């Protein structure tokens, strides 16, 4: 396990990058849920953790606009593919998903299993 940060250093909406050998892992606090993902987009291997965490337009009828999922969607900085941090890093538009890692809370800190 790699220690990411003390719990109060990773408040909701925050992100930390940790190094695990050659790999970089991004650890996100998504509204109290901790999510760790490999810093590589499954499409063209972009450094996805440099992308913003955003809301998105929810599925809707033509001409209807509904905004939601604020702070839950990681957007790739290259091609704009959207990944759902709260659903296993699934992509909203492609079968490929982010690689995720287990996160544990122990001794007042956030830990990630590489």
């Amino acid at each position: 396990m790699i220690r990411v940060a003390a719990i109060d250093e990773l408040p909701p909406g925050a992100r930390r990058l940790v190094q695990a050998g050659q790999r970089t892992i991004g650890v996100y606090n998504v509204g109290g849920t901790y999510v760790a993902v490999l810093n590589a987009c499954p499409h063209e291997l972009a450094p996805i953790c440099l992308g913003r965490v955003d809301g998105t337009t929810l599925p809707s009828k033509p001409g209807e606009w509904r905004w939601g999922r604020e702070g839950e969607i990681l957007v790739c900085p290259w091609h704009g593919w959207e990944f759902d941090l709260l659903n296993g890093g699934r992509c909203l538009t492609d079968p490929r998903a982010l690689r995720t890692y287990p996160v544990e809370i122990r001794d007042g800190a956030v830990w990630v299993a590489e």
Partner: protein
Amino acid sequence: MRESIIDTDIHPAANPKHIAEFLPQPWRARWEMGNMGSPPLGYWNPNGVRRVDAIGPDGAPIASDPVHLSKLFFDPYGIEYGIFLTEPHQVLLTPEPDFAAAVASAINDVMIQRWLPVDARFRIAMHVSPVDPALAAREIHRVGDTPGVAAVMLPSGARMAYGDRYYDPIYQAACEHHLPVCMHPGTEGAGISGAPTSAGYPGSYFEWHTGLVSSFITHLVSLLAQGTFQKFPGLTFVLVEGGVSWIPPVLWRMDKNWKGLRKSVPWLDRLPSEIAREHIRMTTQPIEEPDRPGALQDMLGMFDAAKMLMFSSDFPHWDGDTPDFAGRHFKGELRRRVMSETAREVYRLPPPAGD
């Protein structure tokens, strides 16, 4: 030995302040007032058009600084040569012909004087405005023989298709200076160009961007049908960032039509697809990504990809392809042709070191 990679579509951004330095009056005063000619049409790309991570350690966009571009893009990807299709493009379609031509000249001067000396791997596709082809030809005569000028760029947003004889002075000048003409998308709907599609204005960036292929089809068919390559047998016309997979079926349709309609285009002495094979080149990005990867391989067998297709990254735009991502589609000799050697011929680049 490292693989040669020649990137045929890179987008530096010329600094507006530097452009101003090369503008004569009254255009400099106008430019410095903030009136820089026709703006983009204004569709919303939620990702921004430029990659948000393409930023140097000092916070400056990589594409706005020649040293950044050299060290942070050419070096890590091992780019042997890169063809610059410098931004901005929309201004080339601004309705005032003298202003559009002056800005094109100023952008060329910025690139020649501030960028080309920084790195011997840099090459530019020079700007011209198609609004007045005589002025465009004058600009090609002015800088076309400058070392580092490797091509002439035309925006694919246009008021007439590029096979129209109106544009012949541009092709005449390009041929005299042995420069290929590179057409690049993104200005459809801007300035004096027509509507982005033959049926008007799309309702989103997504719809507009997908439909850019219709602009490319229009220009390709026009160039072949109106006899541009019979008039200018030395001309190479590069379809940059137009996609790839639509080419074979459009050429099939042209060939089929030619067999019954040749009488209406008597200068076409052979199949349009044969003329295309000699004179048309395409760049890879945005390479299509069909669910069944074999479909792309099938498509690559439907035209002479080894002769016609050249790698491009489109760096730093949101829909770019890295060399390794695009390159994995091409094997053996085809890969060598696509990643470097066809471009070396088209842009008249030196042989690789050691040859």
